[in-house]
């Protein structure tokens, strides 16, 4: 069945990542019993035991991500996500694929700017086999040339398609304008040229540098006890090198550049705006999160939704978000509308940003935002084992503390109207950079 939705789901940031902040709110009524487990070999994981459903969800992340691609080898980490399951040890691609399918586990790998992440979900009854297969993928992938060629060809196809996708075109311009010479400006999926040149040894080199124990975080949820988890941690991750060899990624202070328009013949103009922002560890993070929710973070309730979509029917989707990465932060916003209404849409978004900088939120808006952000935590993030496992990983990545799930509501509740007004004035008082991709109106 083809299905259309009333509203776009969460806007994906230009960098292909959803801001970390998305996974971090809590209802005070809900307590997740999180345990810290450390294996014999010293590998740490956060665990939530739950036997309601006969499943185990494992999430993990290696700090590093696409910033660890070597210069000229952009796309390595992302190609790796497609090749880890193409045979391991003595088992070649097709036989390995059949083992994965027969086991029935679901698995995925992804590479963002700051981390290489993965996750599996397995039936309890098949978990030993699933952990063996995961161990093989992380420790002994084959990277046979045939498989690498095949996956590279598929990636190249994707890169070619991006050349005429207005969102991708806008994303590229946005990234380059924001991050200039910083590693964050590089295309996470590589270019036709760099992807085309990647070889098996590049994948193995990346794996050896980044897959290690000192940059690893793990979250596990489901039908598994502490002892079984310890054995699993040593089996899957215990043979990895103790220390990762990560290149330093410099801290970067975002400065927005000139506005630009990219001419492209398409029925709907893509619009992106950006301002310098803050990182996740900034003391004003919670305050900024509330301000962003009020401006354009809430899907059916935000100033941008009201002004752009509800009142004027200018767009199907309009949003704003906090781009919080390990080494830089920015504020993003965007929409899409037909060419002859693009300027009006830009003007309204810019006006709303200015208004937020000048006036800040009202007490009523702040109260509503707090209620939403506190209440939505359990509803949005704690209802499946896979999502809880992701939360356990995110808590460790951002170093939020094991009591974070319980403390979160207090952090939000403590923010005052003065706080959000100060944050709004600080973050939204300069002129945003505007990038548009579409037809010029004659």
């Amino acid at each position, binding site marked *: *069945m083809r299905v259309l939705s009333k509203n776009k789901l969460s806007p994906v940031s230009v960098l292909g990542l959803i801001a970390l902040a998305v996974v971090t709110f809590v209802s005070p009524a809900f307590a997740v019993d999180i345990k810290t487990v450390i294996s014999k070999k010293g590998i740490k994981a956060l665990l939530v035991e739950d036997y309601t*459903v*006969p499943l185990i969800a494992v999430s993990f992340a290696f700090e590093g991500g696409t910033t660890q691609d070597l210069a000229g080898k952009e796309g390595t980490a992302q190609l790796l996500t497609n090749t880890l399951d193409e045979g391991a040890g003595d088992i070649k691609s097709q036989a390995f694929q059949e083992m994965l399918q027969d086991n029935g586990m679901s698995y995925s790998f992804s590479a963002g700017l700051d981390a290489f992440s993965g996750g599996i979900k397995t039936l309890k009854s098949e978990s030993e086999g699933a952990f063996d297969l995961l161990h093989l993928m992380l420790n002994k992938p084959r990277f046979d040339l045939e498989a690498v060629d095949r996956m590279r060809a598929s990636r190249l196809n994707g890169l070619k398609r991006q050349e*005429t996708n207005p969102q991708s075109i806008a994303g590229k311009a946005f990234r380059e304008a924001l991050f200039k010479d910083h590693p964050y400006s590089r295309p996470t999926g590589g270019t036709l040229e760099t992807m085309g040149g990647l070889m098996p040894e590049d994948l193995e080199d990346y794996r050896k540098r980044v897959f290690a124990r000192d940059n690893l975080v793990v979250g596990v949820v489901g039908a598994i006890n502490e002892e079984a988890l310890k054995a699993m941690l040593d089996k899957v991750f215990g043979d990895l090198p103790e220390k990762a060899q990560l290149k330093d990624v410099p801290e970067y202070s975002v400065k927005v550049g000139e506005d630009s328009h990219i001419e492209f013949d398409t029925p709907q103009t893509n619009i992106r705006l950006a301002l310098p922002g803050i990182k996740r560890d900034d003391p004003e993070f919670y305050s900024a999160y509330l301000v962003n929710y009020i401006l354009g973070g809430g899907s*059916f309730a935000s100033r941008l939704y009201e002004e752009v979509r509800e009142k004027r029917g200018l767009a199907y989707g309009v949003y704003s978000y906090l781009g919080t990465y390990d080494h830089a932060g920015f504020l993003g916003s965007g929409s899409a509308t037909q060419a002859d209404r693009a300027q009006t849409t830009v003007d309204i978004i810019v006006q709303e940003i200015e208004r937020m900088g000048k006036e800040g939120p009202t007490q009523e808006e702040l109260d509503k935002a707090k209620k939403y952000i506190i209440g939505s935590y359990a509803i949005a993030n704690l209802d499946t084992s896979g999502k809880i496992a992701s939360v356990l990983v995110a808590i460790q990545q951002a170093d939020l503390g094991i009591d974070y799930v319980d403390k979160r509501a207090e952090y939000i509740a403590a923010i005052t109207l003065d706080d959000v007004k100060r944050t709004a004035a600080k973050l939204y008082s300069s002129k945003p950079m505007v990038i548009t991709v579409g037809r010029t109106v004659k």
Partner: protein
Amino acid sequence: MKELLMSLKKSIKAAAFALLLGSTAISFSTLFSTPLTSTVQAAEEKFGPEVTSFFLDNGLQVIVIPDRRAPVVTHMIWYRAGSADEPPGKSGIAHYLEHLMFKGTKTIKNGEFSARVAAIGGQENAFTSTDYTAYFQRVTPQALEDMMTLEADRMENLVLEQDKIIAERDVVNEERNTRTENNPGSLLREAMAAALYQNHRYGIPIIGWKHEVNALTKDDAIAFYDKFYTPNNAVLVVAGDVDAETVKMLAKKTYGKVKRRAEPGVRNRPSEPEPRAARRIEMSDARVRTPSFQRLYLVPSYNSDEDGEAEAFEVLAEIIGGGSTSRMYKSIVIGKKIATSAGGWYQGGALDHTEFGFYSSPRGAATLKDVEAATDEVIAELLKNGVTEKEVSRARSRLVKQAVFSQDSQSSLARIYGGSIILGSTIEKIENWPKRIGEVTVESVNAVARKFLKKKRSVTGYLSPERIEG
């Protein structure tokens, strides 16, 4: 949706696919209590929730799916009204009405429903398909009664004013731009559906043809609403941290007060004639960078099939087109090395006859003709020699295992039960799905393949950067 299927990396397993497709959601219908095939241990472990169903006096069916792990409930109302139920010339009205359902009622002002959902941190959305329209909220259990009150209210008290709903029509136009006009792949699929369905309204896009959407009015929306939005034409699904008795009490108190507003009757939509001619759609667009090939066959759905044909198609799709161990992928991508992708799918969740499809995208110097010929070769081999016992048992086992994963998500369960029952299934059938998949045989798979994978039942689509020669 299909584009997602095609562009997704193979390592994201079919489980994720089916959720994205929504359509094959029924293939996920897991679960529970029934003995599974011997290869599947899962049946011996704790299996699935006790699902309850009852009817209110006004004809509303209520389904309750317990999931007590987190203090969350998913509240969904499904209407037997989709784009295929629209009157001629009014394409897009089902979807436009879905947007307008957020505009307020006699007592609730525009946006207030959404504001009350947001005030408690809830989530909400709505969606329209060819066969149904559904609305949902995910909230804490304490807020369930409020959601039921508001949803029951807008089942009968919607208020629309022409001048206030014009802006929302522009929103729908921008939605069409985002989904379709900006994407040549979507335009091809629209054209292929229009060719595959020669008489049925499945050939018309859910979002509507642009010129017809632009002429839709308040009266069109109200006429559709008055015809289909009535308790006896709806299914309520409540999943999560709540018990059946509480839901029953609350449902009587809220939805129970809504009068039967109409008698929509049996859904006799124009049906497909026996197909006689293979059709071809060739589309070129300067924005296309990588050519792509698709083939659709008109086949029965779970609701329109006979004797387990849908389950056999499900297994067939897994064998011929499911992931990187499928026949298509092995032959075309790995063996011949002429494509970057190749696979197939079965869209079983529909009221009437539906689609079995194949896709591929050529690699290197290979052409669309090459990948089409290679696809035809795999199909011909299948029709000639059939599938093997080993292939069937593996596919059955995989499908049943994947189904267990849906138990982890109350939203998925709510969607599976609602989406299946609204299309004519029953709780018993959903619960027996693993058993029926376990009973699919080599013969039944070969039989559906030979009966339905005929060129005359198909549409072939080419999407390329420039005009196709010949």
